[in-house]
């Protein structure tokens, strides 16, 4: 597409659209370097809020917790989601397949409030009947996040497996490789880019989840989004702006990275398709 061909109307609406999306983020970044404590007053450049941030133990520990939960739940959801995707894409039509597929993707379409509330009820019941989990905390948040993330992972992996040429796996079987070995030797390396990108997707979903976390967290477990939310309720705060700026940078880096991984895989596949 050539930029010269876009009409003035197109340019204006494109500009407005981008402004609507990115001006708030820009403002946030600008205010994170603001010397004044008041968010509405610009008073010169300063990095003091960053040093305040790095000395704030509550922020540091909640960030650590968020990171831990995100790593644990994206790992688990990639394992479970890959298995579910494999079952849906490879195990022919079996009884209750539609129900299975629907139930796995339900957390994606169900309002998060409902998912969070129902899981809270589940854990409360479990505690009454079995005394486990004794209290809400990392474990319960982890279970909730895995439920949510797994739905997305399953969709990504399933669609990758469906578009993958089945005869490649059949060829391996024909050469004497047993089914389980085929998965690790053939299927897994081929879908590795999809697994990597679904891991990143699950990671970002988990690390910024607020609603489900709010239902499932206990007294000792405050994640970063929860902390930010509770601080901002007390008033806008330049320290949080600094935190948000760092988050934007990290997320942008991750997105660009994931994108490059996928583009590379795509290029390889098209090159292969062209060559055949």
């Amino acid at each position, binding site marked *: 597409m050539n930029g010269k061909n876009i009409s003035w109307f197109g340019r204006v609406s494109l500009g407005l659209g981008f402004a609507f999306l990115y001006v708030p983020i820009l403002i946030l970044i600008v205010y994170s370097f603001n010397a004044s404590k008041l968010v509405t007053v610009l008073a010169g450049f300063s990095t003091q809020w960053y040093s305040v941030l790095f000395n704030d133990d509550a922020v540091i520990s909640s960030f650590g917790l968020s990171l831990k939960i995100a790593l644990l739940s994206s790992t688990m959801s990639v394992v479970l989601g890959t298995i579910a995707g494999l079952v849906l894409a490879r195990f022919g039509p079996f009884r209750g397949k539609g129900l299975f597929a629907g139930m796995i993707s339900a957390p994606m379409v169900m309002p998060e409030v409902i998912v969070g509330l129902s899981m809270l009820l589940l854990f409360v019941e479990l505690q009454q009947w079995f005394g486990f989990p004794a209290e809400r905390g990392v474990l319960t948040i982890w279970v909730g996040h895995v439920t949510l993330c797994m739905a997305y992972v399953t969709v990504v992996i399933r669609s990758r497996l469906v578009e993958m040429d089945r005869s490649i796996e059949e060829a391996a079987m024909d*050469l004497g*490789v*047993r089914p389980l070995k085929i998965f690790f030797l053939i299927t897994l390396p081929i879908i590795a880019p999809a697994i990597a990108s679904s891991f990143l997707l699950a990671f970002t979903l988990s690390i910024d989840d607020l609603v489900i976390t709010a239902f499932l967290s206990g007294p000792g477990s405050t994640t970063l989004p929860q902390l930010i939310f509770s601080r901002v309720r007390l008033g806008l705060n330049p320290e949080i702006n600094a935190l948000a700026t760092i988050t934007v940078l990290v997320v942008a880096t991750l997105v660009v990275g994931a994108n490059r991984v996928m583009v590379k895989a795509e290029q390889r596949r098209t090159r292969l398709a062209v*060559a*055949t």
Partner: protein
Amino acid sequence: MVESSVHPAAGTAASKPYLQIVDVVKKFGDNTVVNHINLSISKNDIFALLGSSGCGKSTLLRMLAGMETPTSGRIILDGEDITHLAPYERPINMMFQSYALFPHMTVAQNIALGLKQDGLPRKEIDERVERMLDLVQMKKYAHRKPFQLSGGQQQRVALARSLAKRPKLLLLDEPLGALDKKLRQQTQLELVNLIDQVGVTCIMVTHDQEEAMTMACRIGIMSEGQLLQIASPGELYERPNCRFTAEFIGETNMFGGHVVEDEPDYVRVQTTELPRPVRVGHGITGTLGMPVWLSVRPERVGVSRQQPTAGGNWANGTVHDIAYLGGFSIFHVRLDTGKVVKASVPATRWREEAAPTWNEPVFVSWADTDAVVLTQ
């Protein structure tokens, strides 16, 4: 089939067919895709399954490879019933239509994968991979990934991979389907030579009759899940046993009619599309008056300005169209009955006289051994 053929004594194994497909049926739901197929193939044969798209060729091949299980029937290879063996337990290798090379492995790794499964020592694997690469002349490319190869090179890697384990039976599903026409013709004979060189029994699937006739010693014609005729290329062309085969292999002139004279060594067929009954120089198993078809290949039809003297197999008409093809021309002659007959006439025919032109009245004729009567 006798039950004893499952466990033949070692001495008689050679005289028995190497591969036997016994009454195999495959249904997908209510859809019968392979319909009571019986087929025997002897050792080191190259057999081609030829048929139009969707007739069940690939399904039959996949049942041999073990990717599909027959609904009923048995498959016996070298005296062993393999009907219910898993694909990874069969001494059969297949070359897939899409080649199905492993995209994340190099050429050498692709070829070695099957050998590794047999637990061969590393040195022997390397040797065999080397020999396979030599065989298909791909040594230079051993460390390339499949996407760095051209279509023809990928095809050769796929072939090497399926030959590496020295299978008892090699299956080729449209082995040259992904190549362009010119490359395909070059590769056909090359492939046959390779298969002969390693001496492997081979079944290939194709819908290209030229390919089947070039490569195979026997061809099976498939239509709607049934095997209509199994014969050598020459026999299929000269003596088709049914209308489908006659029309599927090459071009032909087909006349519908019925038998008016049925003798042991000849028959006469009356058809409304020709002015007089046609005499055909072979007997048929049938009854007087039964409906039959008459097939006459275009190259058997002569075109002349003079009325043919001998026999009754001639008709008069006018030249309707001429397709000039260099070495020969195809004359489309419209008979007085309205039927258009195609005649393929070599250019050398017109040395003494000029070739007829459009709308010129001519005679078409053929010898009574040139027509074939088809009863089904």
